């Protein structure tokens, strides 16, 4: 679904131009945020020996880092709502760098928890959310492609960061590596600098300029100026009215939109995703040990994971392109639930694959499914709540997912320990994901129908010939309204309007 362009964002996103540079920056930022905890595990053995601690104690470092990255979501959202994406990402990059540089001088494990766990984790949180948010600001028609490309940064960064970490460790030891990694993380600041602010103010200036230029030739300057300024000025009028009667809830909602919890689409997404993450990461964690358990040697087991990573890298942009096609885009929620269920089915079928070839096939399909889900993770949320409320939505969603993400692998591990067999872990993961996929499918079907119904009601109101003022009010009610417009109808209608605006805004 694409929300009506003008009423949701207040401007027409460029869908290209500088947007592709932003996608590149976002992929770097997202890549660091997702892969840094995983690449950090290379230092575990050394740190265990240096500080004389057990494996679980050192593993706390990455657990704290992951927890802070996801748990810091709401704070990230509040800051983006207040200051915009660019300053937040640059500050986040600086924080990451400072965290790792100070970690190079640590003398106890507690200091390591703080420097690497909290400070770097929080910096990564300030990197992750704003990067995803800014894509929604720059893209609308090509948003799935942009999302797919940005999320593809994660496997690419993993492939570079992992060998780089090993190289640094072999040449500089762990302290030197932390120092250099701190500098490398400062590159997030560079990625952040690319996130040029875009919003109603800057975009409408351009539209006004070009409209002015066009209309002055026809000599309709005064009327057209009034017409162009009305959509932007009337919302401001309403805003001042609002501010007079604001209570504290409204103020909080300005920073972090808790009214999202009344949003039907948001709740569906939240419940479905929280359920999905219980079984999402565990199979990756246990794939190599499972392969070794079935008697495969270490190199081949490692090769399985590389197949997964390569397929993942290719699957993400491809999914973005597919999701952007005109058949899938209006029904993107179904595509998302299908990919989750597909993922779950792969896990359910995994225990049947006992030979190496079977596991290779499983890895390939798992990589494909993993990439599909990841590419559409944020696109579907944007689709449900709209780009303007996405800022708060992503923060609330990540903090809710935080718990299940961290619980998933330990639960899988407990199952393996109790039963002594990997198949129960795969069955659990598969079952949970199929359940999540089915839930999302059914609930989104219901949601689409409700949206279509509401769209019909809105159209009936619009056709009421009472006054233009009512129409304006109705349009402005959209701005504050929690429900969004029906998916099937809007893109086709707006397409023509958008095309006219496109030429004007595609300057940078």
């Amino acid at each position, binding site marked *: 679904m694409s929300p009506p362009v003008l009423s949701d964002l207040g401007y027409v996103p460029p869908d290209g131009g500088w947007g592709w540079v932003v996608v590149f920056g976002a992929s770097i930022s997202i890549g660091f945020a997702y*892969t840094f905890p*995983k*690449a950090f*595990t*290379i230092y*575990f*053995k050394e740190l*265990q*020996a*240096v500080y004389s601690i057990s*494996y679980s104690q050192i*593993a706390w470092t990455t657990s704290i880092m992951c927890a802070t990255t996801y748990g810091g979501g709401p704070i990230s959202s509040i800051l983006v709502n207040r200051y915009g994406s660019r300053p937040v990402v640059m500050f986040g990059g600086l924080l990451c760098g400072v965290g790792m540089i100070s970690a190079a001088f640590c003398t106890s494990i507690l200091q390591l928890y703080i420097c690497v766990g909290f400070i770097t984790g929080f910096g990564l949180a300030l990197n992750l959310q704003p990067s995803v948010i800014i894509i929604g600001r720059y893209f609308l028609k090509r948003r799935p492609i942009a999302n797919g490309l940005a999320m593809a940064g994660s496997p690419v960064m993993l*492939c570079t960061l*992992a*060998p780089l*970490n*090993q190289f640094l460790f*072999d040449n*500089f*030891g762990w*302290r*030197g590596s932390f120092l*250099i990694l701190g*500098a*490398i993380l*400062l*590159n997030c*600041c*560079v990625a952040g*600098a*690319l996130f*040029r602010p875009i919003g109603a103010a800057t975009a409408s200036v351009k539209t*006004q*300029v070009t409209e*002015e230029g066009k209309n002055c*030739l026809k000599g309709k300057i005064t009327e057209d*100026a009034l017409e162009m300024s009305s959509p932007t000025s009337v919302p401001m009028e309403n805003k001042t009215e609002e501010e007079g009667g604001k209570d504290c809830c409204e103020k909080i909602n300005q920073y972090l939109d808790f009214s999202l919890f009344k949003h039907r689409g948001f709740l569906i997404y939240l419940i479905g995703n929280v359920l999905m993450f219980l079984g999402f990461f565990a199979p990756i*964690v*246990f*794939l*190599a*040990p499972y392969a*070794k*358990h079935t008697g495969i*040697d*270490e*190199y*081949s087991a*490692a*090769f*399985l*994971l*590389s197949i997964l*990573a390569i397929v993942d890298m290719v699957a993400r942009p491809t999914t973005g392109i597919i999701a952007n096609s005109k058949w899938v885009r209006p029904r993107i929620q179904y595509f998302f639930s299908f990919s989750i269920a597909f993922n779950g089915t792969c896990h359910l079928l995994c225990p049947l694959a006992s030979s190496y070839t079977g596991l*290779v096939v499983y890895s390939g399909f798992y990589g494909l499914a993993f990439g599909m889900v990841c590419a559409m993770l944020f696109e579907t949320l944007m689709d449900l709540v709209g780009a303007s409320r996405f800022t708060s939505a992503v923060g609330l969603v990540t903090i809710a997912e935080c718990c299940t993400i961290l619980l998933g692998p330990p639960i899988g*591990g407990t199952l*393996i*320990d109790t039963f*002594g067999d990997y198949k129960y872990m795969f069955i659990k993961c598969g079952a949970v994901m199929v359940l999540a996929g089915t839930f999302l499918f059914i609930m989104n079907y219901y949601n689409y129908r409700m949206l279509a119904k509401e769209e019909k009601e809105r159209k009936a109101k619009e056709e009421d010939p009472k006054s233009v003022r009512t129409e304006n009010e109705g349009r402005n009610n959209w701005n504050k309204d929690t429900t969004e417009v029906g998916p099937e109808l809007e893109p086709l209608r707006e397409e023509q309007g958008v095309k006219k605006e496109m030429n004007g805004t595609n300057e*940078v």
Partner: protein
Amino acid sequence: MPATFSRRRLEWLLLLLCISLSGGSPTDPVMTTQDASQSQVNPLTKVQARLNESSGPDPTTQDLKQPSKETMSNGSFVQSEILLPGASGTPLERIITLANATTVELSCKLDTNSHLKSPQVTWKRGNETISHTSKTESSWSIRLAVVDNSKMGSYSCILKGEEEISGVFHLQVPKIEARGKFVISYERDAAVLLCKSGATPMAWTWYMISGSKQIVINASLQADKYLIDRVSANVTHLRILKITKEDAGVYCCEATFELGKATLEIELKVLSIMAPLKPFLAVVAEVVILLTTIILYEVYSKRKEKCTVLIKENMSNKPEVDLRF
């Protein structure tokens, strides 16, 4: 498929994927190469080594019951058998790790499917022939009381029939493992050298090798410099404090068992603070340059935009409206 990759590339891949996404610590590339090359000779020692790894990524893998056809000498009796001629590809060698005094029975058994009939069997250790302890129609064994180092070595049973087939048993002390071939540390920092054995040694000794001489490290004499820690029964730590450039070199840890000694060499490299500082400053410089370029480009393009706005205004010849924010 994996066989078509070069070894080095496989090592990178192994590293990449052992650490990627598994949330666990990687196995050292050096050790895995050793493991892989040994796998032809003794798949069972590898199984044991994996089980003994206490810092593995998932503790769950250790709990899984792995069949171990070969036993360590925890008890006082060890039995080992080689099937001859065996299926093609099966190793005709066994490595038996012994730490304490044990009675060992080695047997060579004739495969019932084999075409060899009543071969002549000799047991040898080097050039010395050993007489059978027990003999049946299809199996020949010797029993040894291994009480000291002199009895360790390689024992082979040679079957002479139409063709000569032999099976070899290697009696060895447990090997020592370390985190890597070298450890990197910095001046004024502390370093930890770690040695882990497969069995519990009677004693651990650390040496520093300078030139061809071995200097014993006596922790009690230099308590502010060296600290030897027996972290667990099988693991020893050598902690070197206040490192200086003179401390760089090769260190050797030696595990003393009843039946012999095992040694391993680890190199300590000492770097100064300047070493990582150069790449660090290079990366910071790169970041600063990129940031400056991006900001300058943005300022330049904004100015260009303003210019075009002004030009358009002048050209359209209409009352001035201040559209610039």
